[in-house]
């Protein structure tokens, strides 16, 4: 029956139909409540995780700053190109986005492990995927075994009075993959 033809049926429908009608909304409430708890007790950005916190705060995934620096046998403190981490299609994108949006120990370690496994070359002092710069790889600038991966994540706040976007450090960890 169509509700537009018989609104009165709202009150007479069987219990089974009533239950079927609330399962999806209950799932929304469970996921969103979990997101609220996780975002309130950890560094998950409120924009992510299914809690409908988008456009509620400046602590958005896009305004978070992710910096990854690597130390290898033959190089120390080399920053990784953000495009190699976060751009669409980048091999490291999933782990990098996960670590930036929810920088838990496990997510940071996952990113560090993936960075350590990636084939990177150094171009102009910045680590980029070796496949992206064949010439650099041929010049012998490919990085050796990575010993330390340093991952730092900042969120940002806006100081209206001063007119400043202010980075606030969330985590800064040195990891040995």
């Amino acid at each position, binding site marked *: 029956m169509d509700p537009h033809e018989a609104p009165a049926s709202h009150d007479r429908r069987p219990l089974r139909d009533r239950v079927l009608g609330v399962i*999806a909304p209950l799932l929304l409430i469970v996921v969103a409540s979990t997101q609220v708890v996780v975002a309130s007790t950890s560094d998950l950005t409120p924009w992510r995780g299914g809690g409908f916190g988008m456009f509620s705060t400046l602590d958005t995934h896009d305004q978070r700053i992710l910096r990854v620096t690597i130390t290898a046998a033959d190089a120390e403190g080399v920053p990784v190109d*953000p495009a190699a981490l976060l751009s669409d299609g980048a091999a490291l994108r999933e782990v990098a986005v996960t670590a930036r949006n929810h920088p838990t120990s496990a997510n940071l370690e996952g990113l560090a492990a993936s960075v350590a496994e990636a084939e990177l070359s150094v171009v102009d002092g910045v680590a980029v995927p070796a496949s992206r710069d064949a010439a650099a790889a041929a010049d012998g600038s490919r990085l050796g075994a990575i010993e330390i991966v340093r991952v*730092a994540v900042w969120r940002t706040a806006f100081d209206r009075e001063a007119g400043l976007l202010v980075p606030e450090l969330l985590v800064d960890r040195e990891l040995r993959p």
Partner: protein
Amino acid sequence: MTEAPANAPLRHHLDAFVSAAAAPYGLVVALTLTTTVTHPPRGASVLTPVLAGVGVVLLPRIQRDRRFWALLTAVTAIGVFSHPLVDLDNHHFLHVYWLLALTLAALARDPAVTLARAGRLLIGGLFLFATLWKVVSPDFTDGSFLTFTLSVDPNVARAPLVLGWQDAELVEANRDALAPLHLDPTSEVAPVPISVTPTVARMAAPLSWLTLVLEAAVALTFLLPLRGAWTRWREASLFAFLLVTYPALPVLSFAALLIAMSLANTDLPAPRAQVLHLGVLLAAGLAGQALRLLAG
């Protein structure tokens, strides 16, 4: 004796399609499937839009077919929830919930009434959480979030540009100032000056509260057990939200899902219900295009 024309089966199918798509439930299904074809949720495999496309073609047969909806929901949910959850937008979650609601409605004795309940509670639930997040975020209620966003985000800045509140060069300069933070790994992570026009600075807080009131109104009207003419406030609040928000934030697939849910729930008589819902969706899309043309 005359033979039936060769295209009779096709004509029959087209008649059945038009008849199904013109009915409220069929239009809800058609809107959902079309959105799934054009904007599948992030993480969904290619199977999702393909299945949804087949569903559009076979609309009269599949609109209440539990096997079709279960398959589409399962295929989509597996893809979406295999993707990192912290990389999904809200409407990607909502898309899966809505497909699940359509599956469960197909299992019900009265699919339309069951889907109406699901649509109402999904809209009410999502706007409740959206409102709560904004209420507990000081940078939203004091206008900081909108001040910054209106001064940096070229999509959100379009309406203020057209109204003369914003300066395109200022927005571009702010974006240039921020770029090294995100693109240059050798740059220092330090505060960045952001220029704000006096009008944006003045209007950001009132606009934030207008957004809050609109979203709270949608949550309340959809969650309260309203009866009779009071239910009109549901469409009124949702339409106001869509017409204010979506021209500036061009996530039209989210708007289409909300329209489908509202149409599933509405007590407005047909065909006024269908015309109003499609009209609002179209108006939001056209207003967005107009803003793009006017603001560049």
